[in-house]
């Protein structure tokens, strides 16, 4: 066994040189076995035990070598033909090849045709849209006209209503107490006091007046609450 495997250090001249990669031998993880290179590096001389070893020359019989030559020649010839075929195919179908350029031209022509079709279709749809928009505009205008007419009628009605209210108010304002009649109105009010107090008994009889007593009036003349109020 090569002695350097144990020490990992080879004496080359006077220099101790570490010939195994340091990481390979110093990795000591628990449960992990480090990978060791067991091969002797190329720059070391042959081992002393192998120094005079002469490996025997390989001998291939004549008939066998001729057959191998034929097979290899056929193999190389066929592989060259296959490579050339594939290369020609790649060149034929490459981006700059005639076929590819022809295909690109066909695609461009188809694209142009489709763009022209798209333009025509857009024009057709635009005409249809114009008709529809015109119709919608006219419908909208008719609706606006109708709305305006309705609003005018509504305003007219409102004016009539306002005029009616004004008229009624003017009529009502005639009953207002004027300043020159104020004294007379006060005196009239004092002379005719109004008592809004009233009392109600369990049977629903109403007795008007703050100081009125039931016995003041005859029981037949007692005022009765309306029947709806009892429900």
């Amino acid at each position: 066994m090569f002695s350097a495997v144990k020490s990992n250090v080879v004496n080359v001249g006077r220099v101790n040189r570490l010939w195994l990669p340091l990481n390979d031998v110093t990795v000591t993880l628990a449960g992990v076995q480090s990978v060791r290179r067991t091969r002797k590096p190329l720059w070391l001389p042959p081992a002393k035990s192998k120094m005079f070893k002469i490996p025997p020359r390989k001998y291939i019989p004549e008939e066998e070598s001729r057959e191998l030559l034929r097979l290899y020649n056929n193999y190389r010839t066929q592989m060259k033909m296959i490579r050339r075929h594939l290369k020609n195919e790649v060149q034929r179908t490459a981006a700059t090849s005639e076929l590819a350029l022809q295909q690109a031209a066909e695609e461009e022509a188809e694209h142009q045709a489709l763009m022209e079709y798209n333009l025509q279709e857009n024009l057709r749809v635009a005409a249809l849209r114009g008709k529809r928009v015109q119709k919608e505009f006219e419908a909208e205008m008719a609706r606006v006209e109708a709305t305006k007419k309705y609003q005018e009628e509504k305003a007219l009605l409102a004016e009539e209503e306002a005029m009616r209210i004004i008229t009624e108010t003017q009529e009502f304002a005639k009953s207002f107490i004027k300043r020159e009649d104020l004294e007379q109105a006060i005196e009239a009010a004092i002379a005719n006091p109004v008592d809004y107090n009233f009392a109600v008994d369990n049977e629903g009889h109403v007795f008007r007046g703050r100081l009125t007593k039931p016995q003041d009036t005859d029981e037949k003349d007692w005022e009765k609450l309306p029947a709806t109020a009892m429900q």
Partner: protein
Amino acid sequence: MPYVLIGRTHSFYGKRLWELVGHLKEFGAGRLVVRSRFERYPEPCYFRIVSARPNFDNGRPHKDEDNMEGKVLVEKIFRGKNYGVVDISDSAYKTDFRLIHKHEETKYLRALQTCTPRQINILPRTVEMPTLLKMVAEREGHERTVLTMKTSTNPCNARVAEEGEQPNVNISVGLGTPVSPQLYKGVI
């Protein structure tokens, strides 16, 4: 004194080219050398040295082995075909060269004239696709559903068959025709 060779062996046999030409007049210009690796071919293979300039002093005495560098031009004959004057400086250091005696040169020259030319592999124009690739090609509409053969710009031993010509090499999906059928005995 007997000696024992130790160490690894190789397929070369011979000396370095620099070692050969270093002993010759004018560094062996005009002489024939062969590489033993090329002697396995039936057709003649040799080099005729045109000029050689070995680099004796590399500025580092005793640093490396001698006779390792230089510039050499040779007339190359490989498998019965003359490839003209080539530079083999990059391979001249290989211990694979053998000098041919002058009286043996005629043998090589005559062999070059009389040798049968090397067989040219005539490859099929198209080859069937592998099954999966063929399915993909048919599904995705590839341009072709067969593989087309194409050689490198100047191949020395192969060419694509002409229109209507019969290829002499069978390339197909699968094993094909084995050159050593005995290897497959009992297997397929």
